[in-house]
């Protein structure tokens, strides 16, 4: 089917919005991976849990506005992430990497089940208005999409500033780089890992809210968020925040453009397709370092 310039621009913009939401989740995922070097299967479920907290505060029970509800949700999910790290991952610090991975799967299932039991398993929406988009040249942009883009940029810039300019950020980078060396230099690595989980979970909650604003919420949508985050991080290159962002944008764009030419049943598989092709061409990912290759798949 022919693709006009107008449609192409709209597809690119839609892909950018999807990619921006994935980027927030992927950066949080990247931080958690950096701290403990295992595939955190619970990351997507933490994102959805955070989004449901925001939904509960804004639509379900307390009827706060979306902004205060989201701030509360991000803060509470940060606490939840630190709690999970304390009770589930800290005792497994010296266990083989498969142990925390299996634990993460169990946590994902528990979080999904908790949402279903407490809130229900039907689709939930934030009270965002359904409005025809505003015309910017050939592109239609809704206020919700603009808000998503703005919030994504805010989250990403905040993380970049934190990692670049603060003592905590430097400690997080040091632990991610070499935990033993960081410990030897006087950094309390357990405390830094706990903080990393808090920040990673806060970003996950932010991504969950953005995805909920963009489309809808469902208790089991965490799995797809997790795999897209994982694909974005590996594609961008382990150990590089900018890589995770660019990987996410590539996946968002490819999904939206791809469905134009291939059946939609392939949409979620596109992320993996790009990942496989990308790694085939450049095994370290776009911005990855050579020493991260062996850690890419199972966090070994």
């Amino acid at each position: 089917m022919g693709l006009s310039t107008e449609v192409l621009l709209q597809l690119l913009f839609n892909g950018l919005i999807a990619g921006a939401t994935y980027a927030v989740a992927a950066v949080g995922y990247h931080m958690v991976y950096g701290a403990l070097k295992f595939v955190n299967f619970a990351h997507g479920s933490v994102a959805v849990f955070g989004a449901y907290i925001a939904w509960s505060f804004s639509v379900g029970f307390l009827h706060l506005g979306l902004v205060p509800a989201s701030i509360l949700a991000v803060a509470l999910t940060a606490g939840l992430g630190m709690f999970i790290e304390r009770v589930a991952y800290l005792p497994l610090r010296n266990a083989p990497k498969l142990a925390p991975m299996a634990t993460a799967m169990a946590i994902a299932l528990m979080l999904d089940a908790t949402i279903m039991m407490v809130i229900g398993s039907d689709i939930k929406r934030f009270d965002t208005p359904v409005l025809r988009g505003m015309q910017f040249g050939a592109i239609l942009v809704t206020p919700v999409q603009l808000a998503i883009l703005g919030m994504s940029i805010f989250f990403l810039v905040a993380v970049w500033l934190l990692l670049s300019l603060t003592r905590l950020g430097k400690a997080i980078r040091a632990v991610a780089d070499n935990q033993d060396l960081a410990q030897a230099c006087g950094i309390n690595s357990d405390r830094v890992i706990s903080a990393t989980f808090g920040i990673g979970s806060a970003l996950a909650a932010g991504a969950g809210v953005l995805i909920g604003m963009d489309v809808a919420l469902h208790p089991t949508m965490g799995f797809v968020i997790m795999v897209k985050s994982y694909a974005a991080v590996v594609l961008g290159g382990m150990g590089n925040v900018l890589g995770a962002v660019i990987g996410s944008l590539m996946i968002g764009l490819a999904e939206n453009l791809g469905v134009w030419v291939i059946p939609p049943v392939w949409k979620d598989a596109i992320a993996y397709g790009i990942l496989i092709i990308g790694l085939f061409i450049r095994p370290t990912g776009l911005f990855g370092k050579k020493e991260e290759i062996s850690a890419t798949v199972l966090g070994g």
Partner: protein
Amino acid sequence: MTKRSGILTTVLVVLAMALSAAPSRGATPYKIGFSGPLTGDGAYYGEASKEGIELAVEEINKAGGIKGVPIQVVYEDDRNNTADAQTVLLKLAQIDKVPLIIGINTSSVTMATCKKAQELGVVQYSIGSNPKIGQSCSDYSFLLQGNDLEQGLEFAKIGQSLKLDKAVVVYMNNDYGIGNKNAFVDSAKKAGIQVLAEVPLQPEGKDYRTEVLRVKSLNPSLVAFVAYGAEGSVFLRQAKELGLQAAFVGDTNWGDDSMWKLAGDALVGMIALQAGAHTSPAYQKYAAAFRAKYKKDPSIWSEYFYDEIYLAAKAIEMGGYTGAGIKEATKKICASFVGASGPKQLDARNYVRWSFDWVKWTAGGKLVPVSK
């Protein structure tokens, strides 16, 4: 009496008293199996089904059950997933030993389980509506909503009535959607409506903007819309955001008040099919009882399952508590049964003959009748 024999005697006496206090064999409830989506994207339908079922069970048991024996529904969650539904079928048939399973929500689940159900001697009451069910399933499967061929024909009638001659059909990419889509495409050709494209929606999708743009780029005057509430509401909201301007005609899913909660303003202007008989005395009586019990208006899905329980009770009473007996009795009873969801006369392949009202969504979430 030694201490040990004293204890033994006491235990035997207590056991005898407990057994004598247990209900007689005749009071053991008639179990009816339920296989439907209680979690997952289809949970909305499952919960609505359950409300209709519980109301009917309460009414029947309060009136003395089936010749004094109460009925009991064993609920199992199939998530509208064909693999889960097969596990549920085996569990209900072999462990709970039910001769009848109700609640089946989709064509896919019906087709995936009907042959095994027949082998096990279990009757299915389904609202699956794909035309292929009648070909691939036996007369143990009763399709109590209708046949999509009739729904597709009705879509084309609406297009003709509104003089809309360029259509795109947007459909769920599953047995339900494909059956309806094919029926619409056939009927549209006969009615002189040009079908510009067939656009599938992947089940459980959360973003359909590319699909919306595909439809928009074709500039159709009519969009025939065959979608479940969860996925369809995402498409409708994004269609509004992206400025897709065409007349939408929705399937029976969209003739239900509760869709407003999912899609809101994006529904305004849509014409939908409504399959019930909402002005009939049977519906009015049911709706009043539903409102009294649940303090809310009934969903259109509840009435089908409310009727399934009444049908099941009559079939067990007439044919006995066996699959073969229930099957034969259901055929006879359906000939004259008129429930809250309308009459249930069956055609040769066990589909209920369908009749539709046309309704239109207006601002504020009200459905108003459209004259044919």
